[in-house]
């Protein structure tokens, strides 16, 4: 017994001494950061920790951050670009108390979880005025307070290759399920693969399914609220069964091995004229450009029923930036966020580097062809919001694989519909 206790004690002592000894080196840097707060401007260096969940326009971002550093002597911007596993990394940083001063998350359900750490922007009218009203809505918490600021609009729907449609003799965009099927037939007759749905990606299938949950009389939020309250059931949704018709089309008129198509492959096929239609959003612009800058592409609002007015293109500011309210350099963090989202440099990053329409008001020309195409629909008020960012946690993880199972023939439409209903667990 004695021996054991001794061993435990010694282990602990060893561990502690070893760790504290080694830890000394690391912590000096941090204390330097602390003192920087008190003596800002006196030449001490302040490090602003930024977490960015994108891998788009990295060069423009670096340029933008550099300019900020130049105009703020003594300030260093330390950015972690964690495009992969961004949730995991952010979660572990928040947990370990190493909360970045400025960070971004997906708006809606994901962002809500971080709002208890977020600075409340509600009263900062000067800043808020620089943004579009609708864009700001994506950063509100349950009480309507603005806890985060929007990045860019992202739009998703079907994307089609204009040249291939022309080649197949399709002059008018299909607006109903029947027309879509007819278009697929025509493309097929012309020897073109009509549909390249990235069915290997469960997130693509899941996003596709949200089109068929839309009800024009409610907005995306309305649909979610009704599903939450139980007033709306999947089996009663008027367009929902058409998702299966669309998946059937994707299998019938798609590549030989539909479930092996990933996002990269489907975008490559579209850009190179090997497939006519995919489901994706305008975030894929830079990838499409790198495949074929001359590809003639545009959005095809997704037909969901027999009614031509029901077609949906979904648009939302789905990334949102949060300032850590407990930041040691709160004012600087706020200034930096305002800078990247609204300044000219920041807009250059979004419009040029990323090629998307900023959530902030802007006069700058947007580079992305798809984003420009989508904004004509946005201006006509023909778009809907996103459901998948405000749906319950864990739901996507259930329905994506279920849709795959439908495509492989392992589940029937009825069973999948039931999975959707069971997966929608209100928290």
């Amino acid at each position: 017994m004695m021996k054991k206790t001794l061993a435990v004690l010694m282990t602990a002592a060893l561990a502690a001494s070893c760790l504290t000894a080694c830890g000394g080196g690391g912590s000096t840097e941090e204390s330097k950061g602390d003192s920087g707060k008190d003596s800002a401007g006196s030449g001490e260096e302040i490090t602003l920790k930024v977490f960015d969940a994108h891998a788009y326009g990295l060069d423009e971002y670096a340029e933008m951050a550099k300019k900020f550093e130049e105009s703020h002597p003594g300030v260093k911007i330390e950015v972690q670009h964690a495009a992969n596993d961004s949730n995991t990394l952010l979660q572990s940083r928040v947990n370990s108390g190493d909360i970045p001063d400025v960070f971004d998350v997906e708006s809606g359900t994901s962002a809500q979880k971080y709002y208890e750490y977020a600075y409340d922007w509600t009263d900062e009218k000067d800043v808020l005025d620089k943004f579009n009203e609708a864009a700001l809505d994506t950063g509100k918490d349950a009480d309507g307070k603005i806890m985060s600021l929007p990045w860019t609009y992202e739009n998703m729907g079907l994307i089609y290759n204009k040249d291939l449609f022309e080649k197949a003799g399709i002059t008018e965009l299909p607006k109903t399920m029947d027309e879509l099927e007819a278009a697929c037939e025509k493309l097929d007759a012309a020897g073109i693969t009509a549909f390249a749905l990235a069915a290997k990606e469960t997130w693509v299938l899941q996003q596709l399914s949200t089109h068929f949950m839309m009800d024009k009389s409610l907005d995306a939020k309305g649909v979610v609220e009704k599903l939450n309250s139980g007033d709306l059931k999947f089996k009663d949704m008027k367009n929902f069964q058409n998702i299966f018709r669309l998946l059937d089309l994707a299998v019938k008129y798609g590549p030989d091995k539909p479930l092996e198509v990933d996002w990269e492959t489907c975008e490559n096929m579209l850009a190179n004229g090997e497939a006519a239609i995919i489901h994706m959003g305008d975030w894929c612009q830079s990838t499409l450009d790198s495949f074929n800058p001359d590809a003639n592409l545009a959005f095809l609002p997704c037909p969901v029923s027999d009614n031509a007015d029901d077609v949906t293109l979904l648009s939302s500011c789905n990334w949102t930036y949060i300032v850590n309210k407990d930041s040691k350099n709160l004012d600087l963090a706020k200034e930096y966020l305002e800078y990247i989202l609204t300044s000219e440099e920041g807009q250059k990053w979004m419009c040029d580097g990323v090629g998307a329409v900023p959530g902030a008001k802007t006069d700058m020309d947007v580079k992305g062809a798809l984003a420009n195409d989508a904004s004509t629909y946005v201006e006509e008020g023909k778009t809907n919001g996103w459901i998948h960012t405000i749906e319950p946690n864990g739901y996507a993880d259930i329905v994506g694989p279920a849709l795959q199972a439908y495509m492989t023939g392992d589940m029937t439409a009825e069973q999948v519909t039931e999975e959707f209903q069971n997966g929608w667990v209100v928290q």
Partner: protein
Amino acid sequence: MKGKGKTKDLLIFALFVFPAVAFVLFSTDVPFLMNLYYSVFDWNGISKDMEFVGLQNFVNIFTNDALFWKSTAFTLKFSVFYVVIVNVLSLTVALVMAKEKKSSSVGRAFYYIPYIISLTAISLIWKFILGPGFEALYQVTGWEMFNWSWLGTAKLAFFVVVIMTVWQNLGFYMVNYIAGIIAVPKELIEAAKIDGANKFQVLRKVTVPLIMPAVSICMLTSLTFAFKLFDVIMVFTKGGPANSTISVAYNIYKEAFVNNRYGMATAKSLVFVVFVLIVTVIQLKVTKSKEVEA
């Protein structure tokens, strides 16, 4: 007198062993134990608020979590295939490589290459082997198997995972087996040969018993690797198609970071570790009993 000697022994023991233990405590044991605290909470992994739920998470695992048990079944099935195939193949390769001394260092490097390359690149390559690679082979050979949708069919996707992981890790076990084989004293083999044993008898009666330490290392590492299977699933199949290749580690990861049920995820990892411990202890006992002390 005796007590003093004991204290000295203990001190030497501490000097030799404790630094290593300290490193492991710090990087794994302590974080893992700290983590178990969350298994009795309902917590999303982010918020400052946690709700104490007692054993509810464990009850949920055993009563209301079909996916976890599906992933357990997948992991078990995978482990059996992986452990058998990878050990048989790597031992075969190692026997050849240990013999052919001149040409073997390049040959060994070849087998080791997939183990060196980052997994993102590996998955890119496999995507193309199964895609355009198989297409080309189908056109040349006309064999139907090259036309199957390997990643799009649940049953076949399982074998893709097995083949890919065996292919990737073979080099690791090969290196271990080679180290074991080379350590077998040449005199013993010569003696057996003089006694009239043929090559297969030498292998079975002399080499294999003497490399049992290497065998048990390889068995244990392959078994624990198989149980912890994660990277390939995360980067390559993403659990698909239709959740057919979800491993336990991947299920735990998704629970914690995608579904944000952190408490539940820790409860699962505890259940899982207990299970793995039981299996490995059995396995250790079995291989230990076969080892011969030299």
